[in-house]
């Protein structure tokens, strides 16, 4: 069987047995969004869609980072990672499968909550579709960088702050392009450049980051 399918099935099945790993970041997303929504209503912040879109993106980014930050920690501890490395034909392909499953488990549920968040933040419904179009490739990039951060810190212990320090700077371009595209779309301005930019970054990340992740997984065993 293909290494992609094997890794996907396994990661997805394990994720399915740990529903809280997906539900907690979803709850985090809703709680933070409502906190911001409360302060918006209470304060005198007369916002256009611009600020609300930026807030939504940042909250989604943080939730996705937290959700994907635990990648490979279990495999590292229980020894299945060494079985993969010992037997595997292509770690690169296997990483792809694992990341894809993680995207379904961690990012897709949060992206599915975007209409709720957008509604809470009073974002114009006309912007919703562009939010989705940019968030789908955007969340893929966020997941990939999250898994990269997780493999960088494998065995260091569950150090969420370190993960954030490593990963958040890498999120900047996609965040800027994504927020920019949505804001410009809200103002009926052209945003194609940003859309192409996000797609290009997503393609690049999908192609190259699994190499880095695979190399880090391999060296994580050299103790």
């Amino acid at each position, binding site marked *: 069987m293909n290494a992609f399918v094997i890794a996907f099935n396994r990661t997805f099945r394990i994720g399915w047995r740990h529903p809280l790993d997906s539900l907690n970041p979803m709850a985090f997303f809703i709680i933070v969004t409502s906190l911001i929504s409360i302060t918006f209503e209470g304060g005198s912040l007369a916002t256009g869609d611009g600020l609300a879109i930026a807030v939504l993106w940042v909250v989604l980014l943080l939730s996705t980072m937290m959700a994907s930050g635990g990648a490979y920690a279990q495999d590292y501890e229980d020894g299945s990672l060494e079985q993969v490395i010992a037997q595997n034909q292509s770690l690169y392909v296997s990483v792809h499968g694992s990341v894809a499953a993680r995207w379904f488990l961690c990012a897709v549920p949060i992206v599915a909550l975007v209409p709720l968040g957008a509604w809470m933040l009073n974002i114009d419904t006309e912007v919703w579709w562009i939010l989705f179009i940019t968030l789908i490739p955007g969340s893929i990039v966020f997941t990939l960088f999250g898994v990269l951060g997780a493999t960088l810190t494998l065995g260091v212990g569950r*150090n969420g702050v*370190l993960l954030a*320090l490593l990963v*958040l700077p890498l999120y*900047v371009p996609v965040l*800027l392009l994504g927020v920019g595209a949505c804001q410009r779309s809200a103002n009926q301005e052209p945003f194609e450049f940003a859309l192409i930019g996000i797609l290009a970054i997503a393609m690049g990340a999908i192609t190259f980051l699994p190499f880095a992740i695979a190399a880090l997984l391999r*060296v994580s065993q050299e103790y």
Partner: protein
Amino acid sequence: MNWFTRIFHKMGSPPFFYRGAKVWVSWLYVIGFVSLIVGTVWGLAFAPADRLQGDSFRIIYLHVPTAHLSQLIYIAIAVAGFVYLVWRMKMADVFIVSAVWLGAWLTAFALFSGIVWGIPTWGTGWVWDARTTSVLVQLFLFLGLIALRTAIPNSQRGALAVAVLAIVGVINIPIIKYSVDWFTTLHQPASIQIGNPVSIDPSMLWPLLVNTIGLYALAAGVILYYMRINVLRRERNSEWVRDIVDSN
């Protein structure tokens, strides 16, 4: 290319590096200090004031060289990371470990001096434009490299992790520049561009060049100094380090 590969291999040998770098450190310190003093005094006291910005422009004598140098150090770290990834050359990792703190300080100073320059000149210390944003992200990346290297005690793993992060980061910086440029831009374009006619008066340019040379030399000296220390620390169990310790 024969001499190049020969030097490349020799640089990879810790004892050769340790002995060879010794002379360089002192010379680089001398050149660095002298040029920095000359350039700074020249720039602050003797160069003419700017027609539009008055005396506040003089901070470029520190701001511009540090900003350029910090960026150069980041790129050098990424290149060293690549060398480490491909050839597993230990000296590349020694370079990264030795340069990363200096890079972080220089980046912080570049940001700080930019704020100091910006307040009297543009009326605001901070503008989210391409250069400021990318320098800020660069500072975060430096801090990430330091944190990661400290968190992983195993030096092989730590070295590889830092190398990967440095490379991913260096790819990110131009992308950030493009995306911020697209987002918005509010800064005066860079004055010194390779290949472009220089738009700054020579009487102002000379101290800048002297200072740049001085800062680069000093930074190279500091990095080499720390590289020598780190090489000794890493090779403490090897023959040649024992010989050096015994002979002292």
